[in-house]
């Protein structure tokens, strides 16, 4: 609830709670020897992009794994996020065609 200049009380349609920003994870100095999860969101040709990225990551010494979201238009399932977080140091997500 907030007031205007005339002291009227308004009911805000917004969720006024302030959510603290999640801090960024520390960035590794090198990707050699790191486990990199490659997440395909199931959008057209995303896999082609990840194929190229995977090839370059592998050449740089990273260990890659491939994951796929059920559908691009929904958030990833919590179990999928947990599985990726449990085994990977880094994630690359291919967003769209």
């Amino acid at each position, binding site marked *: 609830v907030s007031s205007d200049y005339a002291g009227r009380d308004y009911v*805000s*349609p917004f969720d006024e709670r302030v959510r603290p920003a999640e801090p960024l994870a520390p960035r590794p100095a090198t990707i050699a020897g790191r486990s990199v999860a490659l997440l395909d969101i199931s959008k057209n040709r995303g896999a082609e992009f990840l194929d190229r990225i995977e090839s370059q990551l592998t050449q740089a010494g990273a260990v890659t794994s491939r994951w796929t979201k059920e559908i691009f238009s929904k958030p990833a399932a919590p179990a999928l996020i947990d599985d990726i977080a449990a085994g990977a140091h880094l994630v690359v997500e291919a967003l769209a065609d």
Partner: protein
Amino acid sequence: MIIESASRGPGRRHAIKGLQRSQPASGLAPGSRAPDLAVTGTDPVPVSLADLAARGGALLVFVSEECPTSAMTLRNLGPLCRAWDEAGLTATAIFEDPLDVAIRVARGTGWTGRVVSQDPPYETSRAYRLLTVPTSVLVGRNGDVAGTVVGWDHSSLAALIGQAGALTGQAALTLPPPVEPLLKPGCSSKAALDPRVAAAISRPAAEDEMEEMFERGWTDGLPVVPPTRQRVDAMLAGADGSVSLGLVPPSMGEATLERVAACAVLAGCRPAYFPVVVAAAKAILDPAFNLHGQAVTTQPAGQLLVVNGPVRRAIGLNSGMGALGPGSRANLTIGRAARLLVTLLGGARPGALDRATLGHMGKVGFCIAEDEETSPWQPLHVERGFGPHQSVVTVIGSDAPLSISDHRSRTPEDLAYILAWAAASTWSTNWWPLSEPSVFVICPEHAEMFRAAGWTKQQLREFMYEAVHKPAGQLRRGETTPVVSAADPDADISKWASPDSIVLLVAGGEAGRYSAVLGPCTGMGAHIVSREVESG
């Protein structure tokens, strides 16, 4: 138009042909001390005339948004500002408008100099004794007025720019030959208005309740009803406002009943509509509807609400003439309340998290009621398992309606064929089959033809499904589906994955043979969701 120029001697005034010498002087005499600027720019550091003029002088161009001559001046001088700046002359557009307006106009006219804004009562315009915008004032490095040009006057402006070249020591400062008229009178400066008039037209937004709603961002772009405590309480009608209906994607604001009520007030709903708004909110927040995907997509999709049952008549929802158009407060405000929920609580603002390339007008709000009394068939909610006396809101991700005229068909087969093929290019010309729902709104005269022939709804659906098909080879141009790409060229592909992808409703005026089809929102895995309207 009056020119004063230091090069022509202090105090000399030249009336341009066609104007009366008795016109009051506008601007300060050359050699006068140029007043400092009481303006706001995009930079948090206050704008200082001394800083602007420090290198080789300052060109101040006083303008306002609604003045065509101002726009013309900005258009003509705007592209030159960068070169002038490199030569030491700083050009600044001083708007008698709010800063956001100033920035928009400057961008639109191609002005590349600085942009600043004055608030009422336009002290800087008053200090420079402006009667007219545009007025261009050249200020020398010493802080004195070197010359003034009122209105658009190409030759005088060229002389002024030449004079600036002399001040900066850069003879190359010029104004190119004109591509627009040589002379164009300006408009009244707001500083020259009666102070009461100026105050009335420039009242700060915070003093106008309707404008304040825009300032707060509590809008979809149209004026809203301010959600005072009294109005929201009336909307809630004693319900517990702290009850949560869930989180609204994509930004996951919590939809408490009180905030939903605030959206309903903003949208213009009467309290009697609120149970329908709540049912709609519950439906669109059902994960099966995938509002998350619909809210952020580049597709045009909006959320279509279909209302069935006794509540339609109880609150005056229109299912008759103009059923998809304007005129009915209940339809327009209930649909708008649901969209405001997505926009304000879900954060799906166009251009921000709502990434729709075009969108469509139904995204302001889209609520239709089925004409169950005219329909020869079971209404939508009964098809979906509700009783005929239950009131139900059904939500469907939908594109804009495409009208289908058919005044000539004399058999139900011909009419069904016309209706079905009208949808052949929905979503995309060669995107076959569609598995998401296409919604056909059948007008009463068309419905009557099917009723008279004894066609059931399922019979019509199956006929339409069977009618629209093509060999895959004819669908392989431009955007097409993986199904088409993988199929044998002779394989028959239907427009819809099954008859169940066709939703049939009846609504519209009793006269006129215009039905409509609303294409789907695709790729979302979004299902149709229905929720009963619970009485308060």
